[in-house]
């Protein structure tokens, strides 16, 4: 128990002093996760909204598939991206395996289903409310999608934060396509796994503290934003 407390104290000191190795890992994690979440939102939000509003053959099957992809095993995604980006793979010429862009691709593919499925549900709820009014105003489908995305932006911001949290917490796929290369592709989750295995608990704990703080801060921000909006906009 004493070792744990000592590790915890050491971890807090590393956070406070901004240890270079530690800071580099945190910065890379933030960069790749924010990029992944942004890309996943750019694809997933309109995709979810289009499925919510659209009427086309096979729509139900698409919804079932989107929901099923929520449970997509991350190591499978990692393996598929690995096969795509490996030297013998179709995208091998890009030479980005074991680089941060490979991590971004894998995380994006993992986050898109989550963003699409959650935004589909959110936008569909809004569409139930808006449908007749927008139809009455002669709003076309593409415009309706844009309007719903904008009007449901606070709920969708929470969806984006959930996607960001998913990206931050990913280990398996990141380990496979990033390789956990020191100073190149080592992010918080893979570093925690490695340092724990190596017995370097202070660094693992320090990274865990940062990871938890980020997740808590994101959720607090989402909560406060919704509260503020409810007070201001009803």
């Amino acid at each position, binding site marked *: 128990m004493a070792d744990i407390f000592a590790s915890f104290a050491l971890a807090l000191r590393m956070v406070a002093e901004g240890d270079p190795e530690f800071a580099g890992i945190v910065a890379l994690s933030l960069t790749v996760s924010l990029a992944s979440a942004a890309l996943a939102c750019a694809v997933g939000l309109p995709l979810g909204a289009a499925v919510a509003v659209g009427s086309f053959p096979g729509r139900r099957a698409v919804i079932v598939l989107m929901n099923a992809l929520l449970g997509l095993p991350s190591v499978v995604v990692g393996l598929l991206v690995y096969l795509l980006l490996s030297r013998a793979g179709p995208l091998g010429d890009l030479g980005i395996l074991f680089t941060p862009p490979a991590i971004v691709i894998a995380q994006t593919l993992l986050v898109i289903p989550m963003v699409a499925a959650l935004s589909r549900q959110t936008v569909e709820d809004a569409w139930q*409310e*808006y449908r*007749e*009014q927008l*139809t*009455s*105003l*002669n*709003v*076309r489908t593409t*415009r309706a999608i844009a*309007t719903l995305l*904008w*009007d449901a*932006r606070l709920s969708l911001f929470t969806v984006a934060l959930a996607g960001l949290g998913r990206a931050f917490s990913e280990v398996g796929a990141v380990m496979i396509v990033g390789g956990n290369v020191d100073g190149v592709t080592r992010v918080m989750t893979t570093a925690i796994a490695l340092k724990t295995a190596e017995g370097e608990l202070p660094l693992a704990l320090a990274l865990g503290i940062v990871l938890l703080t980020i997740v808590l801060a994101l959720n607090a921000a989402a909560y406060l934003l919704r509260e503020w909006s409810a007070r*201001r*906009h*009803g």
Partner: protein
Amino acid sequence: MASAGPREVLPLEARGLRVRLGEREVLRDVSFRLEPGLRTVILGPNGAGKTSLLRALHGLIPLAGGALAWAGAGRDRRAEAMVFQHPVMLRRSALANIEYALAVNGVKGAERRSRARDALERTGLAGLAERHARVLSGGERQRLAIARAWALRPRILYLDEPTASLDPSASAAVEQEIARIHAAGTRIVMTTHRLGLARRIADEILFIDGGKLVEQTPADRFFEAPRSEEARQFLNGELP
């Protein structure tokens, strides 16, 4: 350059309209003709099909049978607007709600801003232009919905129970807006269960019961001596 307004689409002839909602036939063989310039109030007991008729006329629910014949070159969606019993306001200011409606109907730039402000002024809401539309009171929202519809300069305005959930002063304000819109040349078609409002506003009554049109009668004659037994019972409070 000001955008071209909607075409004249009246008279409108409804021929044998049938509407199904699920297994239930809510409108059965409804035929009538709407001439320009009048204010038509659709009356009937609860569940008679008043709102369904309005929504069918506006194209919000599909017809299971029958047809709508519009004058001239046929339907022009821009010539129609509707105010719902519970209007949906977008998450933006009152002014932006009207500008949005104008923008999707092709009104551009400065004209859009000017028409939106004009509609707010006409409905007495100019002071609330920048207020978020979703925090307005029920009466203010209903007037904003009317302003939004009016800004589109429709030839025909459908109103579904526009005063149903309003207090007397808000109802009076809405009634005044309707009168102004009609005076400006817009055809009014409205449902209500308030007979006093119908008496004050209507030029003609469409009375429906059980999904069927029972009579289309000038308003004064309807209230003095309805032709049908159903209407007489309705006016006497003998129908639900």
